[in-house]
């Protein structure tokens, strides 16, 4: 079962910041500057934390994981936006 997380980071070094961004791209949708929305199983969350843990500086950087609850049936209620609209992807497949 996947859970939704808002992952926000504050990285004090440009090189590490780029690496964190690269990692995050593999795991979630880039919502804003240092904010991603990810839908992860427990195992995926552990993997992501492991990958980030290898890269960040444990005294100077911070990554926050905000748990938004089960992904399925969450709908758009949990995150609302003013300004540019927020939309979540909800199709059974990708077609290009």
């Amino acid at each position, binding site marked *: 079962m*996947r859970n939704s997380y808002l992952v926000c980071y504050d990285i004090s070094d440009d090189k590490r910041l780029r690496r964190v961004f690269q990692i995050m791209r593999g795991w979630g949708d880039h919502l804003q500057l240092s904010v991603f929305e990810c839908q992860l199983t427990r*195992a995926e969350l*552990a993997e992501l934390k492991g990958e980030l843990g290898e890269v960040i500086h444990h005294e100077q950087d911070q990554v926050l994981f905000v748990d938004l609850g089960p992904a399925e049936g969450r709908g758009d209620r949990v995150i609302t936006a003013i300004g540019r609209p927020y939309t979540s992807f909800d*199709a059974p*497949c*990708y077609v290009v």
Partner: protein
Amino acid sequence: MGAPLPAESEREPAAGRTLPDYLPARMVNEYVYCPRLFFYEWVEGIFVESADTIEGKQQHRRVDREGAPMAAPGEAEGEWKTRSVTLSSERHRLIARIDLIEGEGRRVTPVDYKHGRPRETAAGLEAWPSDRTQLAVQALILRENGYECDEGIVFYQETRQRVRVAMTPELVEETLKAAREAWETARRGVMPPPLAGSPKCPGCSLHPVCLPDETNWLRGVGRDGDERQLSLFGEPVPRKPAMSEGGVRRLVSARTELRPAYLDTQGLRVGRSGDVLVVKDEDKVVQELRIHDLCQLNLMGNIQVTTQAVQALCEEGVPVCYFSRGGWFYGVTTGLVTKNVFLRQMQFRLAAEPWFCLRLGRQLVAGKIRNQRTMILRNHVEPDARLLAEMKRMAEVAVRAKSLEELLGLEGNAARLYFEAFGGLIKTGEGTDVPKVFRLDFHGRNRRPPRDAVNALLSLGYSLLAKDLTVTCYAVGFDPMMGFYHQPRFGRPALALDLMEPFRPLVVDSAVIQAINTRMITEKDFVQAGPAVVLKPEGRKAFYRAYEQRMDTLVTHPLFEYRVSYRRLLEIQARLLARYMEGEIGEYPVFVTR
């Protein structure tokens, strides 16, 4: 009528098996935890990561970093410590990697880092039985290497507690017994049965492969003999007493969380950047796909993919499926993920047994006819009672068919009746006439090329379903080319086609009806090209969505009474076929909707 599959105890160990020289301490731990888990991991080489195993690995990486050579017995003075040491015992053929050894002269204490928490008992904190065994293996090995060892320590990282384990003669004896049994289990090559209703299973990362409760439940049923079996899966499906006691625990999640991708714009190029696939049209990025989100990548026609992208997909276990522009399924690229050699040996052996092919074929054909009948019953404007009765009769005859030829004939006759009525399932809104292109002015199926819109959609749909079952066969460890009902033929994934039979009406026919009736696909999506009717690109794309929507639909499993998506169901059914072939359950429980 053939002989039933031999009982597990009578089966010969698989030929040509060579065992490794040493049994790792960690595997003795697994054996004590669950012999079946041990068998999957050590004998079949199947390992599934879970949150616990990943976290455990990360913690070990930290522990293992500080490694130092170990002092030989008697060499070191005073207290000493060393990390991450691998030692073996020739006498017991055991090997262990020890996280930490604390020594004082010749006397040593192995310390094992465990991810979880200790067991709480009335007498206080204790190490779990399987952890105690693992430490005892380490102690035995240390002793054989000349050290003195009469206790070990498990360090539970979650609560950061050290729990002592005394090396009592009883523990040593139990441990040696477990090691002997584990060797014997591996040598026999017969999978131990699943634990019954155990609280260990929900937390075991292998439960989606093992299907413990489903297998146990079916084993209970299978023992009552063939006659009852057949009536159980016959129609009407009777409610069994066990079912009213709550059915089977659903350990696998209802849906697979990963999504397939279909690329169907000619000339697209797929590259890789980190864990993301970047899809470009000319120089414009049209889509980014996270590899972690994909369960398959389908390339419809001329799409270029870089080697780097294919490597990343293979590594993540995401198959790449290739089709012609018209939807002909060419094949699959998969990583080297399944090592399940024994299942394949069994598959080839049984494919040569006519009685087995017939017995499985009966279930598949009867199931397909029943599902076709259900489609008509549910969706036809005016279902013809005579037709329904006839199809019901045919399904009953199929269950008793004497030969594969008879089955093929029955299947063909049923299909003709079914497709004659199929036009009645198409309704495109009140008062409006069904557009000409969807009107079936012929009887039954036509292909190569399809001569009307409905047949064009059906052909594409069956091609997609054949792809999905081919991928499923690889995931489960089958060879998709070696079938039972469908005999092997060049370029034909015969086993995938076998498994597909009961699902054709439920998945494909239903997706086609849905796509037309809800006007996801309209007459504008087709062009006539000579005798053929061809789907335009936008129509094809709409159909992929319709098909995947159907795959994502939840259905109730008639035997286990839980709800799962069709996509999940394909895998469960394929794994049940493996259970049947391995002799664990008495009959293949074909999937039939109520």
